[in-house]
């Protein structure tokens, strides 16, 4: 391992820990943000998410203008209806799981056995996709929208900074208005609680630093497939060698800051994806655990009704499957693609909203019953 790789590994671990810590303190749950909008009409955390994304629009535009980040980010491709479908499935899955691919990690670190169950579901769901990859690939290709543009500015043939300026012109006055009305904070909170606005600013900084360091936005889902590969490898090495998804190398770019070439994919190999994502995942779990430990709240509970464990597992499984179909997850699209107006991310979020609504209908009818 060379010096640049060591910097990425340690940096991602520390940034993952910081993110896990902040998310645990503020309970900055991306699933809850969308779910509670449909379930209770609660918007405070949605305002905070918009603050986070607004900061990232500004930071990414500056960094890409300076040439220290690639535009668009590596791994983003042309839009497809698969992004929309993936968003719908992901929305259903995250509500049933009680947290997304990142939320389940920091909550698992904080002692949630349901989140640990969702993580197992995510690994199984990712493996399920890997097995279905050969069947899905031609269908996914047929769903392409035929555009070679990756972002909205490319589609409109406008400079990215102009679209960013339009976005900021809309969001900044709105955020100022919500700030004046006190809508970016909450009146009550548990011990060590971070206000939503503070958490949003800290998470925007963490997401930006991680993107600078890794060269790609925050994301962990390819590594769920990687973990599935590692688990399957000792059991069926010949079968793993035949699986097409594990052989592909989706990541291949030259890091604009560190000057190294990073390549990698979902297969069980120590490659660029492993270097970027596995320390981030470990950091998220450790950050959630550290926060809970310092508050004296680290405790494993096993008392949830069985149907809730089943829901967490099935939700994780659907998310694992969806994150490979989409491709990627809510964190990748909300903190990476949407701030640069990636078309895949716009479609993913357009699917995530009805998916979340569907998930809420399933959760309230089938999972959460009167005690």
């Amino acid at each position, binding site marked *: 391992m060379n010096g640049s790789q060591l910097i990425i590994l340690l940096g991602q671990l520390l940034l993952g820990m910081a993110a896990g810590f902040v998310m645990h303190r503020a*309970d900055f749950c991306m699933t809850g943000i969308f779910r509670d909008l449909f379930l*209770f009409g609660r918007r405070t955390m949605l305002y905070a998410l918009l603050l986070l994304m607004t900061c990232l629009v500004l930071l990414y535009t500056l960094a890409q203008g300076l040439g220290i980040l690639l535009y668009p980010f590596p791994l983003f491709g042309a839009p497809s209806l698969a992004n929309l479908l993936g968003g719908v499935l992901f929305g259903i899955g995250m509500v049933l799981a009680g947290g997304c691919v990142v939320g389940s990690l920091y909550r698992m670190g904080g*002692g949630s056995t349901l989140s640990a169950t969702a993580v197992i579901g995510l690994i199984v769901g990712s493996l399920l996709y890997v097995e279905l990859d050969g069947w899905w690939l031609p269908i996914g290709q047929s769903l392409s929208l035929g555009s070679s543009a990756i972002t909205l500015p490319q589609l409109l043939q406008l400079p990215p900074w102009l679209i960013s300026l339009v976005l900021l012109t809309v969001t900044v006055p709105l955020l100022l208005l919500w700030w004046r009305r006190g809508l970016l904070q909450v009146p009550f909170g548990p011990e060590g609680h971070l206000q939503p606005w503070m958490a949003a600013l800290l998470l925007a900084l963490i997401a930006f630093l991680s993107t600078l360091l890794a060269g790609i936005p925050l994301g962990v889902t390819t590594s769920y497939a990687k973990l599935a590969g590692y688990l399957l490898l000792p059991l069926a090495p010949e079968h793993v060698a035949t699986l097409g998804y594990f052989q592909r190398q989706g990541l291949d770019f030259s890091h604009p800051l560190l000057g190294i070439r990073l390549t990698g994919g979902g297969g069980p190999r120590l490659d660029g994806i492993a270097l970027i994502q596995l320390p981030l995942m470990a950091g998220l779990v450790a950050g959630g655990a550290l926060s809970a430990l310092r508050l004296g*709240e680290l*405790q494993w509970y096993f008392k949830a009704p069985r149907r809730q464990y089943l829901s967490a597992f099935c939700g994780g499984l659907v998310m694992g499957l969806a994150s490979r179909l989409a491709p990627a997850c809510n964190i990748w699209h909300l903190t990476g693609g949407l701030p640069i107006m990636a078309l895949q991310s716009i479609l993913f979020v357009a699917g995530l909203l009805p998916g979340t609504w569907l998930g809420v209908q399933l959760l309230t009818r089938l999972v*959460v019953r009167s005690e």
Partner: protein
Amino acid sequence: MVMEEMVFDLRGRICPSTLLVAMKEMNDHRQQLQQGTVRLRLLLENRDATVTIPEMARNMGYQVEISKQGQHYELVIGEPA
């Protein structure tokens, strides 16, 4: 008047079942809560619920007390504010 206390141990439940159960119980016992004959004691470990449940309860006009008891939180929802 005798005050009845109903205790709900909601620790370790899936999000957002804690809030849904709290809302259901507040609705089911609306009359007794308003008369001050019942109060609800909720045992929680979900940090988010210590923000959302008091918010909802106060919007519905009830008094809420939050305290940390060791590794978990206790919310007491009682008489009208």
